[in-house]
């Protein structure tokens, strides 16, 4: 069963009106939303750990993309371009509502163990499942301690599986800086994860 989003519905008619212009990916905005919504939402959800805010910012990402579609010249992939918009929104949100954001996080943020419980288990052995779930929980705890930029780059690489060049294009950082942030993030996570693992054992 196919699904459509309100954002897609909202712009369907306008997309038809724009059909006379040069062909762009936004000629079929419904398809763009369908193709990228989950990815954008997943990234925002993982960054904020607040499903409501993630949903709002996801909708806002596509709205902003539509409004500034003329600035998309295909220099990077559409996914990268949308990620850049989502990143800007995320930054605006965490900066302007920083206090409220942290207060909300403390009240509503999803617990790391809850996220870990979503781990699909290919192995049915109970002890293996428990260990994997615990490891993911520990990794989340380690990710929580990263700086905002490191966490963003880490999530883009290890959750969204973006290429380093794409991360550079989305964040506006040089490739060397992206690499350096990733190295630091991994070093931090490795250290924290080792500590937490030892503690757990």
């Amino acid at each position: 069963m196919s699904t459509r989003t309100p954002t897609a519905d909202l712009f369907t008619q306008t997309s038809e009106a724009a059909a006379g212009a040069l062909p762009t990916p936004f000629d079929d905005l419904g398809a763009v939303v369908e193709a990228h919504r989950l990815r954008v939402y997943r990234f925002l959800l993982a960054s904020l750990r607040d499903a409501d805010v993630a949903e709002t910012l996801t909708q806002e990402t596509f709205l902003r993309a539509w409004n500034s579609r003329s600035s998309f010249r295909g220099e990077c992939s559409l996914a990268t371009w949308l990620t850049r918009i989502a990143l800007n929104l995320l930054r605006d949100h965490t900066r302007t509502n920083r206090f409220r954001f942290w207060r909300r996080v403390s009240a509503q943020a999803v617990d790391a163990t809850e996220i870990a419980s979503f781990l699909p288990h290919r192995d049915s052995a109970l002890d293996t499942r428990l260990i994997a779930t615990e490891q993911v929980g520990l990794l989340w705890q380690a990710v929580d301690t990263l700086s905002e930029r490191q966490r963003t780059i880490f999530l883009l690489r290890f959750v969204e599986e973006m290429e380093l060049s794409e991360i550079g294009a989305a964040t506006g950082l040089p490739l060397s800086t992206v690499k350096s942030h990733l190295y630091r993030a991994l070093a931090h996570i490795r250290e924290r994860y080792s500590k937490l693992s030892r503690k757990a054992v």
Partner: protein
Amino acid sequence: MNSIDHLTEEQFYDLVISNPTDSSVEVQHLRDHLLRCPECAAELAFLRQPLADFRSSVTAWADHHSNNRSWTRTSHPSSFAMLSAWLLAAAALILVIALPFAAHRKPATIAYRHATYSDTKPSAASSATIGDEALLEEVNQTVSSSIPTPMQPLADPTGAAGNKIDSNSRN
């Protein structure tokens, strides 16, 4: 690099970051080392496996939330289109119901309006004309009279007084 010289931290992270499909010479060189060095291979697996599980859990978690979000609906018409359709249907129904009544009432209304128009307008106009004429007549009388109205009793003071006296004396 031999098996005793373990991977540097940077090389280790290069391997963690690299894609499985990456076939560059540098990465291939590091992979060759892993085949010879079980310690580095174990260290890499120690970090790689949780990272893979981390991604799987985030993906499943986001899928779960996304499916429960309001934006995910079946491919039925949008709520706006549905609402418009309902409003249109309601308007059509009201029209169908109201049309016979309107058609029935129309001649009567027109007749009433005609009657009202013909009754009220001439009467109002005639009363206005009469009023104007009366006013003009009064003005004419006032202007044409030799003695102004306030001085009328003085026109024939003797006659009037004499009459009065006469009548009084007769009484």
